[in-house]
Structures are given as C-alpha cells and as structure tokens.
C-alpha cells in the first residue's frame, strides 16, 4: 500500500495524472470510478487520435503536389523506418571502419553470408514484383478499358460530326453568291450553331477524359508492397557493398597496414641507399610516409548527418541557447523584482524586443558573430568548444552559436518577466520576519526572495524552453546550420515524395521532443513548489 501511494505521488509530481486511475484500478480501488476516468482520460484521447489518423489518410491522397501525393500516415510510418535504417547502416559502417583483427574478420564473414542470402531474397522479391505487376496490369487494363473506349469512341464521333458539319456549311456557303442579305444572316446563324455544337462536344469529351485519367490513378497495394520490398533489399545491398568494403580492403586496419608497409619500405630504401642516390629526396619521402601513417591511424569514417544525429545537435543548440537565456534573464529578473527603478529602466527593452521574430534576429546575429570570427576554424572559442568531449562531435561552428544566441534572445523574455513577478510577490509577512531578524541583503535574497520566486522562475523557464525549441527549427532552416532545421531544408530542396513524407516524420519528432521537454520542466516546477498546486497541463 505504501508503494502504491509512492507511485501515485510520483505520477502527480510528473504531471502524468491520466495514469493514476490505472494504478488505482490495478489495486482495486473503486473500479467503476477508475474505469470512468480511464474512459475519459485515456480511451477518449486515443479514439480522437485514431479519428485524426483516419481523416488524414482519407484527405491526404486527394491533393496532388509537385512532390507527389500528400503522404498518408502509412507512408509517413514507412518513411520513419527508412530514416531509421539509414541511421543504422551509417552507424554500422562507422563501427566497421574501426574494427580490427578477429572481430573484423568475423564481421566480414557474417556480412558476406548475408550478401549471399540477399541474392536469393532479391531474386524472389523481383519475381514477386513482376507477378504483382502483371496481375495488376490486367486489373488496371480491365479497370481503364471501358473509360478509355468511351473516350476514344466519343473523340472519333466528335471528329466525324465536325467534318460532316464543316462540309455541309461549305456547301451552303458555295450557294450564297446570289443570296439576299436575309439568307446570308441565316447562314451566319448556322455557323454559330455549328460552333456551339463543337463546344458542347468538347465539354463532354473533357468529362470523359477526366474519367479516363481518374481510372488510371488507381494503385495496387500488392504491387506497392512488392516494390517496397525490392527497394528495401536494394538499399541493403547498396549498404552491404559499402560495408564489405569498410570491413575489407578499405578498413582502417587494412589502410594502416598498407601505410605502415609503405613507410617501412621508404625507411629501408633511405637507410640502404647507395652514395649516388638523392638522400634528401628519400629522407623527405620517409617523413611524408610516416605522417600519412599517423593520419590514417587516426582517421574516422566520414559519417553523414543522420536524423538522430541532427536531433542531438538541435537539442545541444536549444540547451545552449536556453542556458544563455537563463544566465541573462534570471539575474536581470531578480534585479527588476527588487528595484522598481531598475524595472522602470528595463520595461521599454522588454516591451520593444519581446515581439521581434527570430527571423529578424538571426541574420543580424549571424553578421555580428561572423564579425567576431573572421577565421572561424581557428577562432579560440570554436577550437575550445570543439575540444569539449561530447560537444566536439557535433560540428560547433558560428552558425551553431548564432542559432543558440537567437534562441536565447527570443526565449529569455518569459523567464525575465516571470522572475521579476516572482521576486516582486514576496510575502509581506516573510519580509517582516526578515526585518525583525535584520537579515542582510544576501541572506534575504537567497533565503527568502529566491525560494519564494522559484516556482514562478521555473514557470518562466518552462515557457522559455518551449519558445526556444520552436524558434530553433526556424533558425536552423534559415542559417543552414546542421540540425533538424537543416534536415527539413534538405528534404524540401530534395523534393521527392519520399522526402516529403520524411518532413512529416520531423513534425512528429519535433512535437514529441517539445512535449518531453515541457514535461521535464513541469516536474522541476513541481519539485520547487512548496504547496504543490493542481495539475498545470
């Protein structure tokens, strides 16, 4: 029972209140009530989400774009798999490059075995695809034939009718030489009638043509599945070819061995050279070969940016910006809360700069940061950040700094305003206690003012992090800095239907991460609140 209440308390603090009826039901507490709650807070949201997915899958294919149909949930799910496979393959290649000795040979053997399996699999998949295509071709023809025939017949008929009409009118015109003006007027009316008839025929033809085109748009799931299997296998083959290369001749071990042999060779050539040979040239060759050996031994596989890596970089960027914002906003907010004069001095800046869009800040920041770093590669800050263990792998460049500063500039206002509010709302009784105890400035600040303001400071930080995360993707797209934004921009420029679906994947990933960040901040906010208030969702 103790345990149950611990769980319930944990759920309450983390703000995942929808889980508490499940726990209560599991312990048999008022089952009818808990079932009602579960129905309302778990089943209803799930139904709503399913309804959304259904609506999406119905509506999406109706709109055709340059990049193909708007992807349905199934296509997006498929694209998620594609993104993940790409990431897996690249990680495996990266690891393969660094393998040595027995492990490398073992892995090589396994990869070769898989390659052999793949031949059979691919052949079967291609057969299935051919069969599926043949059967679907039949179905397609059967489906399209009636409308095609109707359209073709109508077109022929309309051609014939027009020819007949034209001939009749020409014959009539030939007899008009001695006709009266009235008769000529009648001929004009005949001409008009003929035009109207042609127009009506054209309209009905257009209708038939549209029906024909519509019949052609049908897709056959079995062909689609078979084609997907073939594509996935082809992707794997492509990977395996490269993978085998990385494990075999192109592995670091092989390259190092090769470079070592060459270095040894040059060395012995230099040591055993006769008096008539160019010792200067041979000596410098030795040095060059040795240098090459060192670089080879330290070399890494040039792993491309996969989405998971982009996500980590985006998170690093948003947290850098968020930390910067907190370091600026909290002290200024505290000063604002403590001193009405300081508050008066700060208000115009807050009011003026708070509404400015990140899209305005970013180019300005980029130019300013660029001004500090005419040679970014060798700038001390970039070099320093590049040496930080984890951070160093994520290409910290001026664009990263600009994005982080933009995030900070856009997100610091919420923290600043909330901190000022929190500090300003210190309980008068607590201040009286401080006066009676004659607490000094710092004691008052750290023992009374900041603890009082903490829940509001964290409320501000929560808003800041949310704003920062939203701003970041826009900043990355604009600055072409690596990260989720870069991924979206690449997919946009790429323009294939597959990359269109991958942009949808990004929507869900960004949304999910934003939600997780928010939840984390809620937990912090609750941990620093002394009278834990009701759920803030």
């Amino acid at each position, binding site marked *: 029972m103790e345990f149950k209440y611990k769980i319930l308390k944990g759920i309450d603090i983390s703000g995942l209140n929808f889980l508490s009826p499940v726990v209560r039901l599991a312990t048999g507490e008022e089952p009818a009530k808990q079932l009602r709650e579960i129905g309302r807070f778990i089943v209803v949201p799930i139904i709503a989400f399913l309804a959304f997915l259904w609506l999406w899958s119905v509506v999406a294919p109706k709109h055709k774009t340059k990049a193909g149909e708007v992807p349905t949930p199934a296509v997006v799910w498929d694209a998620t798999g594609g993104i993940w496979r790409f990431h897996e393959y690249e990680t495996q290649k990266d690891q393969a490059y660094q393998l040595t000795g027995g492990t490398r040979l073992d892995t090589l053997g396994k990869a070769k075995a898989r390659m052999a399996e793949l031949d059979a699999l691919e052949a079967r998949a291609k057969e299935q695809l051919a069969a599926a295509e043949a059967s679907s071709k039949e179905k397609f023809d059967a489906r399209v034939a009636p409308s095609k025939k109707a359209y073709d017949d109508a077109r022929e008929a309309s051609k014939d009718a027009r020819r007949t009409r034209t001939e009749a009118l020409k014959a009539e015109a030939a007899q008009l030489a001695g006709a009266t003006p009235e008769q000529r007027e009648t001929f004009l009316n005949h001409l008009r009638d003929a035009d109207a008839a042609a127009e009506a025929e054209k309209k009905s033809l257009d209708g038939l043509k549209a029906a024909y085109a519509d019949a052609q748009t049908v897709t056959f799931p079995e062909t689609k599945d078979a084609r997907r299997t073939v594509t996935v296998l082809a992707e794997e083959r492509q990977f395996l070819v490269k993978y085998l290369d990385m494990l075999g001749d192109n592995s670091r071990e092989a390259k190092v061995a090769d470079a070592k042999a060459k270095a040894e060779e040059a060395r012995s050539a230099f040591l055993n050279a006769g008096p008539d040979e160019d010792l200067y040239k041979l000596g410098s060759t030795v040095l060059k070969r040795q240098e090459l050996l060192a670089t080879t031994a330290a070399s890494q596989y040039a792993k491309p940016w996969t989405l998971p890596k982009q996500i980590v970089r985006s998170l690093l960027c948003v947290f850098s910006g968020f930390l910067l914002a907190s370091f600026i906003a909290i002290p200024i907010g505290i000063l604002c809360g403590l001193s009405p004069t300081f508050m008066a001095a700060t208000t115009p800046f807050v009011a003026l700069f708070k509404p400015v869009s990140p899209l305005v800040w970013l180019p300005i920041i980029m130019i300013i940061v660029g001004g500090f770093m005419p040679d970014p590669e060798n700038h001390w800050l970039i070099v320093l950040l590049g040496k930080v263990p984890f951070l160093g792998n994520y290409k910290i460049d001026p664009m990263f700094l600009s994005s982080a500063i933009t995030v900070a500039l856009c997100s610091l206002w919420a923290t600043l305003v909330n901190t000022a509010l929190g500090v300003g709302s210190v309980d008068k009784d607590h201040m*009286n*206690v401080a*006066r009676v105890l*004659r607490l*000094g400035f710092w004691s008052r600040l750290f*023992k009374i003012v900041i*603890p009082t303001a903490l829940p509001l400071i964290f409320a501000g930080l929560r808003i800041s992090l949310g704003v920062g995360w939203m701003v970041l993707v826009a900043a990355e797209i604009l600055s072409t800095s690596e990260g989720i934004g870069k991924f979206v921009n690449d997919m946009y420029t790429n323009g294939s239907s597959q990359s269109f679906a991958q942009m949808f994947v990004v929507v869900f990933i960004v949304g999910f991460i934003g939600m997780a960040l928010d939840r984390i901040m809620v937990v912090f906010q609750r941990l620093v609140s*002394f009278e834990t208030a009701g759920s803030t969702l």
Partner: protein
Amino acid sequence: MRQVEIFNLAKFYPNPYGEPFKAVVDFNLNIEQGEFVGLIGHSGCGKSTVLTMLAGLNEISDGGVIVGNREIEGAAPDRAVVFQSPCLMPWMSAFGNVMLGVKNVYPHATKAERKQIAEYALSSVGLADSMDKYPREMSGGMQQRVGIARAIALKPKLLLLDEPFGRLDSLTRMELQDVMLEILDREKITTVLVSHDVDEVVFLCDRVVMMTNGPAATIGEILSIDFPRPRERTAMMEDPLYFRCLDHLVSFLTERAHLRTEPRIHDSNSLLSFTGRKIETPEDLAHAAA
C-alpha cells in the same frame, strides 16, 4: 528594573483631504524587566499598531520607545515578534527556520553553539522530535510553536506576541499558552501580548492594558492581575478573583471603552463588575465605582 519605556507614542496616517488621521495618541507605559503585559481592546482600536511600532515594523509618528536604555529605531532581533500566522519559510525545516535569525544574533558563536541554541529553543516548545519537519508536514499548532522557538532563540529584550494563538482551536491554544507560560517563567523575558481573548490575558499576564476605542485610541485602564507565579490553570479557574478580573475586562470593553478619561489603575481591590447598564459619562463611571 525598568526594561521598556513608552512615552507619548502616537501614530498618524496622512490624509490628503484634511488633518492627518490619528490612530493612536498619548500612549504612555513603563514595563518592568520580566513583566508580562497584555494589550486588549476592540478590534481596530490600534493595539496591533502599537505592537508593530514597538517591533519597528511600523513607523512611529510621535513620542518614542526605550528598550533597555536605548531608543528603538527600526526592526531588530532584540524585539522578537511572534506573528498571528506562523510566517515560517515553507522551504526550510523547523530547525532551518529557527537558525535563520540565530546566525545574525550570535555572530561570534561557533556553528555547534548556534546549533545548540536552535535545538534548545525547539525542545523548549516541545518540538525536540520534529526539528527536521517542514512546515507543510506540521499542524497549525506545531507551526506556531516553531514561530515561538524562532523568537525566543534570539534571546530578545522584549518579546512581542501579536495574537499568536488567535488562529488555533481552543485545545491547541490552551496547550500553547501553557508552553508560553513555562518558557517565560524560566527565561524571564519581558513580553507584550496583543489579544482580544479576555481569558487569555487574565491567565497569562501580570498587567492588562485596556485600550479605548479608536480613532485616537489610547490607554483607558490598566489592571494588575494579582495571581502569584508559577500559575496553574485549574487552580486559577477555581479562584473567584479570576472571574472578577474577567468581569472587569468585559465590563470595560462593553461599557467604558468609548469613554475618554485619564487612565485609571486597578488591582484586585478596585475591580469593577459588569453592571448591565451602559456607562455613558465619566460621572456614571464614578458612580459605578462607588
């Protein structure tokens, strides 16, 4: 030995449309070392104003206060206050709340000594086992005990109690009154208690200062409660003098609080009793006294 001298104490509030509003005027009172003085009056009569002026939390408009040979200026820990609500910092344990002031008052004490002072204060209010509890884990009575411990840990020259038991239920109130009496009998701290509970002031105080109604409130009567110390509740309640004291206070509050006369001093020999007839003029009062 005289510990506190209050002379011509007054509080004016500025009034933009006329004469300043006079809340309290001509408040004169001397308090002996170790004496327990109660301050009683109708609500809004200014008794809390007097107390906050003594604490230094409210600016003094006229007159002054001398505590231990020194005129007071602003708030300081030598005049500790126990507020009506416990006013504990919710982010600190009971011990932390008591330690908050100890550091400033004993700047030269070692860490261990300070800890000992806070622990002693907490155990003397009966919280030896609850020092690490946070305010949210304590009942209102326990929280107020911490408030009292925080005040007495400062070893104040003057302890100011601003209706400290007003928000407690009657059983808890009685417990805390006993705790308070016990501490004050032992520590001999000069104390001023603001209250509107006549039982409480009679039980606790050596002298009760009755304030006239505001505006321009001042001292109406002063009654000495001639019970020996240490006091014991049941014995006191059985004594007819206890009820005569209550009667005097109630009759003041209902019949004489609105009169403007020179402050009168009463003791057990000159107690007035409730007449049931409104006393409207000083002559009526002389008549009743006779």
